[in-house]
């Protein structure tokens, strides 16, 4: 796996992502007002941007907000100063992951890891195996069970995709891993 702990090399795409600027923000809070998941966040989007503007990464990396965001892009679309808030969240999320600062209780991080393992195996997101991997990791077996059974009854979840592009994805993955390890 691409491991936590790998940092950004100079000129890398990660460094490029981390250079997205929060500087134009004047704290109008339009991002916060439009956020559909604000009630589940500990820091508001405007607070996240403000911390980053002060180059104060620590509270942002420790926040749950960066894991709550689903990148619906409402904030970015509405920002009058054209700050790409959603991309700042993305940068913070990658940085938190790479520096090993993901709290173990962040279920969404477990989901991301399961998604990537599943992708490495299948090359496509096979929903049923993905669900199994995720449930084994989180040991939360009952959640959404009724939903899953509803989908199975309608022939909408299956194991049987034999993906052909898996080898192509694996090759990309290995090439990125080698490049990132070489520049770390």
């Amino acid at each position: 796996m691409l491991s936590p702990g790998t940092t950004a090399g100079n000129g890398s795409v990660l460094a490029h992502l981390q250079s997205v600027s929060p500087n134009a923000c004047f704290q109008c809070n339009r991002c916060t007002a439009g956020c559909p998941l604000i009630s589940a966040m500990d820091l508001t989007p405007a607070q996240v941007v403000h911390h980053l503007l002060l180059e104060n990464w620590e509270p942002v990396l420790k926040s749950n907000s960066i894991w709550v965001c689903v990148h619906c892009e409402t904030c970015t679309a509405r920002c009058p100063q054209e700050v790409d808030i959603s991309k700042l969240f993305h940068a913070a999320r990658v940085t938190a992951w790479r520096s090993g600062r993901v709290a173990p209780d962040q279920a969404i991080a477990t989901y991301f890891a399961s998604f990537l393992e599943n992708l490495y195996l299948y090359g496509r997101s096979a929903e049923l195996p993905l669900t199994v991997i995720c449930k084994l990791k989180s040991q939360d077996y009952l959640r959404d069970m009724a939903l899953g059974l509803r989908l199975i009854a309608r022939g909408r979840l299956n194991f049987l995709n034999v993906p052909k592009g898996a080898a192509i994805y694996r090759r990309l993955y290995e090439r990125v891993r080698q490049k990132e390890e070489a520049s770390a």
Partner: protein
Amino acid sequence: MNRYAYYPGCSLETMACEYDASFRNVCAHLGISLEEVRDWFCCGAGMVGNLSPLLGLATPMKNLALAHQSGFDQLVAPCSACYNQFKRASQEVEEDADVRKQVEEIIEYPLDHPVAVLHPLEMLQHELDGRTLKIQNDLGHLRVACYYGCLLTRPPKVVNFDQCEDPQSMDRLLQRAGIPTVNWSRKTFCCGAFYAIVNPSKVLELAREILTDAAGAGANAVAVACPVCHLNLDARQPEVNAAYGTEFHLPVFYFTQLLGHALGVPSEGLGLWRHVVDPQPLLGIAGVAAVRS
């Protein structure tokens, strides 16, 4: 005739197989040529980029390269998340020569000729321009709330799709097929997407807001263009009713199913029985018995 590379995306093979079937059948009915990208794999779904931004760009760009390799310069992606990934990666590669060089190195393919990425709504609008549609089934009794969701419409500078806050293209397409649509305010409001994995109750709250708004505007059906929107509004509708004591019974269609039915595509080819909220009575189809659970 235009040739389109077709990138179904993972969800259209499983959870949203009725979106895939109805889109292919509508295209066949209209004489539009779709050719599935050979050896396509996952677009990254916004997940891969969280762990490695470089891999997050290489994954969609390699898929576009596969389409280009087979001689296509335009690709259709029906899932909003795939569509968004392709548009975003294409833009980042185009805007920064250094990023482009790194991606080219990983995918081992030159990105000299961009592949245009289209959503079926854009493609159909273009293909049907100036054509008169032959309507076989009258759906004038429907009142459809067209739900566009997030990733199809935002960010506007990346996707450049319709009007960001008040899109109309799905409404116009359905209206051309004789299907009335309603004006409502939640058409681009987020359904919570995969946050359901962490906190299903929060997503039920958002789904309830969307369904309440649609019903309040007089809709008797919702049309969507994304598998995740469909999952949260249709398959979770019983949970919404259980959590809030509501009695929603709003069928949620992929817009391709409604278009297909209006144009006379045989209903077996639309996968309507796969929905949780049975939409067949509303369309007057006896059809396949819906699954109860």
